[in-house]
């Protein structure tokens, strides 16, 4: 039996009816068409499905959509400020922090969680924070360089 789900996604309120077994990532991708959030391992290991729920980075493949009922979700589609990219996105471009791009939306949303919590993380803190996000292309160094640049205020005007 479908149940009512109220969710605010990227500032937009939604009211929909879902099967209780529907995962948050499935609602975002299949119901709302927000396919920027990726399904990767589907076992909370790879981080590709990372979104921010009520201000916290979480793995949307391992949360029932109904558990987010009444909550506020921010996905990669909502990260930019209108036509202006967020500082983290800008830094990823400038530092070449991706190749295939599959991990990127999850990586950016994890980074968003980190920088909201701690705007000036150390390299060590950056590494620890993104250790739940797997990237098989970059070897992480370019990602860490990008986040270090944001942390050091290189993109201050963009934040």
């Amino acid at each position, binding site marked *: *039996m479908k*149940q009512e789900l109220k969710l605010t996604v990227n500032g937009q309120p939604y009211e929909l009816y879902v*099967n*209780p*077994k529907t*995962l948050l990532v499935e609602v975002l991708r299949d119901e709302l068409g927000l396919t920027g959030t990726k399904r990767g391992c*589907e*076992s*909370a290991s790879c*981080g590709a499905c*990372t979104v921010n*729920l009520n201000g*916290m*980075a*979480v*793995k949307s493949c*391992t*949360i*029932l959509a*109904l*558990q987010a*009922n009444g909550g506020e979700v921010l996905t990669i589609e909502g990260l930019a400020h209108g036509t202006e990219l967020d500082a983290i996105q800008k830094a990823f471009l400038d530092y070449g922090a991706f190749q295939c791009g599959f991990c990127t939306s999850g990586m950016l949303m*994890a980074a968003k*969680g*980190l920088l909201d919590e701690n705007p000036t993380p150390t390299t060590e803190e950056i590494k*620890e*924070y993104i*250790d*739940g*996000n797997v990237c098989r292309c970059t070897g992480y160094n370019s990602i860490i360089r990008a986040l270090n640049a944001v942390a050091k205020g290189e993109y201050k005007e963009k934040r």
Partner: protein
Amino acid sequence: MIRDFEYLSPKTLEQALTLLDKYRDECKVIAGGQSLLVLMRHGLVAPQYLVDIKGLTELNYIKSDAKAGLRIGALTTHRAIELSPAMKNGFSILAEMEHRLASVQTRNWGTIGGNVCHAEPAGDPTPVLIALKATLTTAGLKGKRNMPVENFCVDFFETALQPGELLVEIQVPPAPPHTGTGYTKFNIIECDQATVGVAVSMTLDSGKETCKDCRIVLGACAPTPIRSKRAEEVLRGKKITSDLLKEAGQIASQEAEPISDISASEEYRRELVQVLVARVGSQALARAKQG
């Protein structure tokens, strides 16, 4: 593929217990679901009713008292414990352990009670709680029960919870003077679970030389986290030296009952126990001397 179930979200503990009492074996409790949903996706758990307790704010708290110690509500997230200012002095090991538990995303949503009730033998919190002599409280419609965390895990993924019961609180007593606790796990990927986990607590006498009491707890070495009581005996009442810690490690390695699986062979796990007991033991000793 997750099988269909009926989703129930009680608003109070009382409502939750009533539902658990009604549906018993037909229902499963979900808190953060960070372990359960993975099992459900593999079809290993397929409940008819899913009782979602994540929203029970009355079980989400950390209370700290100098005399009584810590009381942690079952629905407190790992991340809340990791960042709590109450995790100081003897309790800082809990924050340290949580910091290395899975990924930050999992810690943001997963709860300590859910982790303990999942009873995965490689879980991080239970060995540390046992080393800290923690107790817990379960609730059912018939009332509450208290027990040492040590007695809670009864088998692989199996706890002492009776049908209709819920874990509601974990209590961590204040550590006696000159007590130090350490925990570490060996894993190949940083945010993975333990291949072997070892927690050691050590209490020294007033001269800070002799071991008055200690606990050595092994994770991922048996169907449940286990205390290596023979290894503890080696240390108790003695002046702790690195040779003695090595001996305790050897004995713990014999006492462990690890299996071979994809992460490590039995032999490798025994080797890890030997090394980690000595290593964590010396960390606990150093901390006990400071305290």
